[in-house]
């Protein structure tokens, strides 16, 4: 299923498209939820709620405004943050995400001393990694991140933008290298076959 096809089928409410969407994006989205909400089953509940919102509001998704994943990530992230706000309202606690005791509410305490992100994001400079982890994965606002990291809001904004651009560069190389490797490999294979 091509990406365009997937979107078309989603918009016509084809359940097979939902299945495809889940297979491709559920793990990535759960990775985001799970870094904000510690409890696995709660995180899955939030993911379920997010998927239902995605499915029901798929008509509102406009391809011209961005990629499907970006839109889905936004919904998932907002659902997660809503959950946390509801939860903290419910327990009538002024304690915010950054509070040391937030663990008891099932909210992951951000710990920037522990690098828990995987993949190429780790090749980012520490100062960029931090903001990406807090903002993208832990649901911090830029203001909260600036307080947490003890750096000015403007700096957070700048680092955030640079980090995103860096990510683009890091991941852009991947297909080039992969294609290079793949073509080299297949050439060798062809040669081997030809020799035989």
């Amino acid at each position: 299923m091509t990406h365009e096809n997937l979107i078309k089928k989603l918009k016509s409410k084809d359940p097979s498209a939902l299945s495809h969407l889940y297979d491709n994006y559920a793990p990535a989205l759960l990775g985001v939820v799970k870094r904000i909400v510690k409890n696995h089953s709660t995180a899955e509940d939030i993911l379920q709620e997010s998927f239902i919102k995605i499915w029901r509001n798929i008509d509102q998704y406009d391809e011209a405004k961005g990629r499907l994943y970006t839109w889905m990530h936004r919904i998932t992230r907002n659902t997660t943050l809503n959950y946390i706000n509801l939860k903290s309202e419910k327990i009538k606690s002024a304690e915010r995400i950054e509070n040391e005791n937030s663990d008891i509410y099932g909210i992951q305490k951000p710990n920037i001393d522990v690098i828990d992100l995987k993949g190429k994001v780790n090749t980012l400079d520490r100062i960029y990694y931090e903001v990406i982890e807090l903002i993208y994965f832990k649901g911090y606002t830029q203001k909260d991140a600036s307080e947490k990291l003890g750096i000015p809001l403007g700096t957070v904004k700048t680092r955030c933008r640079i980090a995103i651009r860096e990510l683009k560069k890091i991941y852009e190389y991947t297909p080039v290298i992969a294609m290079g490797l793949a073509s080299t490999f297949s050439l060798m294979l062809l040669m081997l076959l030809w020799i035989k």
Partner: protein
Amino acid sequence: MDKINQIIESGILEDYVLGLLNESDMSEVESYLSQYPELRSYIEGIERGVEKMAIDNAITPSPDLKSKIIESATQPVSVQKISSSTSWWKVAASFLLGIVLCGSLLFNKINNIQSEISELKKSMALKDEECQKAKEFLSKNEELIFFLKHEATIPVQLDNNTTNMVVYHNPVAKKTKLKVKDLPEINSSETYQMWADVKGKMIDMGTFSTGQDYRDLKYIAEAESFNVTIEPAGGSDHPTVSRLLVSNKV
């Protein structure tokens, strides 16, 4: 072109991808996107980067989550309907069950009551019968007492060594009764017979045996004496004088 560079340099597109913009900034970016299609490829580059990072940091969900999500997402309204209707069904079913249970209990109770009633009716009928018998017995006895105490009733004692009986004769009521107390033993082929002496002629008053309490005898108006003989079973037309048991005058 300057404007495009300016937008890119501002960093608003990165914020857009990260979802950090407020409503008004977001619609601003969206208007840039429709205005400058060149921005699309730039944004897509950023998006792909973030997306890949997210995929690198994916967490595998539980195996059953997918079916749960697909089920609840594809049947959002009917799920609620079903769940609400199932609860209605449950209510209705439990109501029915309750009715059936209460009904069977009541049915049982009614059955029990009905059998009790029929038992009571039976015993009532039995008591009625007994009561009727008692009434009959009582009226019979009252009648008897009335007869025995009647001033016109003449008791005639008939006794000797082996025999003891009384004949009650009432010319007003025109009735004669016999009370046997003792009689000599006789063969089964024999019977006792009572005779009334009317001007030298013996007139049959009927046969009798022991154990019959105050039995009626034929009323003979001009009876001068009562005589008992032993006769062959069934009685005789004329008394066997040789076997006269006892005799007494009125």
